[in-house]
């Protein structure tokens, strides 16, 4: 396996790209997903239909197709250039938002009506009720689903290889091509995925335990 040392820089920069896209995707997905969930619950029929279309598109089409659309179709249409890294950020962010919207809305709906009425009875506005009562509970409930979303997104970033972005899997491909040591190379790449994904999921477990409140657990 010593030959891999020669390529450490390549592996490391690929790994960084993977991590960046993953974290950005998850974070953007969380913010946008929350907004979409709120919009879906409170936005009325038209907004809710638009959100549904958005979600259907990102959940109902292959990730590769989404990458192609943002890498080839949209730039051609608008006559602009978008580099593959930026496409990665956008697509994984939008894609994750579609999934996270579902989890967050589900959690919000499960605590919605009675808690909302109790909050309104104190004179809180609907917006304040969402911020101070609904979301703090929904976010706690959503952490386990979030952990799954992270796990799947972190692995899906490998698809970026197809539009030429040098992430972790593509680094492996390059090395394997140079050295012909296919087995060792991909085993090592797989190990890196395994270690960092497990580490983050463990961290999320700890976070879940830390912010857990009696009576607000998710039954797994």
């Amino acid at each position: 396996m010593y030959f891999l040392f020669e390529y450490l820089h390549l592996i490391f920069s690929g790994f960084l790209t993977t991590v960046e896209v993953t974290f950005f995707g998850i974070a953007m997905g969380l913010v946008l997903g929350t907004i979409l969930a709120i919009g879906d619950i409170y936005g009325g029929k038209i907004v809710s239909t638009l959100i549904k279309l958005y979600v259907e598109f990102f959940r109902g089409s292959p990730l590769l197709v989404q990458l192609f659309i943002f890498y080839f179709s949209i730039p051609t249409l608008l006559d602009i250039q978008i580099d593959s890294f930026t496409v990665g950020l956008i697509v994984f962010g939008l894609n994750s938002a579609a999934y996270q919207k579902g989890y967050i809305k589900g959690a919000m709906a499960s605590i919605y009506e009675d808690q909302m009425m109790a909050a309104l009875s104190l004179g809180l506005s609907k917006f304040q009720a969402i911020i101070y009562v609904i979301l703090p509970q929904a976010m706690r409930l959503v952490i386990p689903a979030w952990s799954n979303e992270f796990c799947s997104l972190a692995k899906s970033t490998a698809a970026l290889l197809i539009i030429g972005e040098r992430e972790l899997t593509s680094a492996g491909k390059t090395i394997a091509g140079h050295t012909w040591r296919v087995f060792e190379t991909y085993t090592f790449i797989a190990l890196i995925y395994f270690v960092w994904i497990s580490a983050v999921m463990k961290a999320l477990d700890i976070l879940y335990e830390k912010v857990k409140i009696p009576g607000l657990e998710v039954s797994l």
Partner: protein
Amino acid sequence: MAEIVLECRNLWKIYGKVVAVRDVSLGIKEGEIKVLFGPSGSGKSTLARCLAMLTKPTKGDVFLRGECLTRPGVDLNKARARIGFVFQHIWLFNHLTALGNVMLGLRRVLKMSKEEAEKRARRALREVRMEEWADHYPAQLSGGQQQRVGIARALAMDPEIIILDEPTSSLDPELTGEVIDILRELAKKGTTMLIISHEMLFNREVADEMIFFDEGRIVERGPPDHFFTMPKTDRARRFMERLIKQTARD
């Protein structure tokens, strides 16, 4: 004569085909305690929620100290802050401690500083004898304790009237006493209240007027003794008989 604090006139609430409240007019005066009772599904909760503007009436008007709340453009959040509400199923905020539950409205609605809000919240918790439980989460409290926090949460806002929707009916019988004791104290202090309750001994003791509600309307009203001695309508008489039998058994 005392001023009317909260009032509805010709109030209707219709859910699809169900007429939950039909043409009800009712006012609660300063310092007065009105008790509403009647069969389950008769529309008591709906009426209470309409009065607190937690549910939008289909027709009719609600007035808070003469100010019409059912006109467009009224700041309902402000109005709701002046009306305390205690729920049948309690509905504490699950992610907040007892203290946090009481402080939320003080901080976010009355915009008090943290120190001021905490002082007032602790005072409210003391009034319901829950001060030692301030740091406990709802799930760590018994039903009776939770409901006392629910009362403190409403009380802390210093509302002009408190509406209590069957505050003891979701509790185990042995826990209703501690809640009733608190309500009795509130009554003694002259708190303006609309109470939905079937605790007939308590009702008889504190009510200025009792209102028998059935099928979305006021069927009969009068001082408590009226219902214990000579209800006019058959429906009220039968309902009273059933309740008294039940109370005797408990």
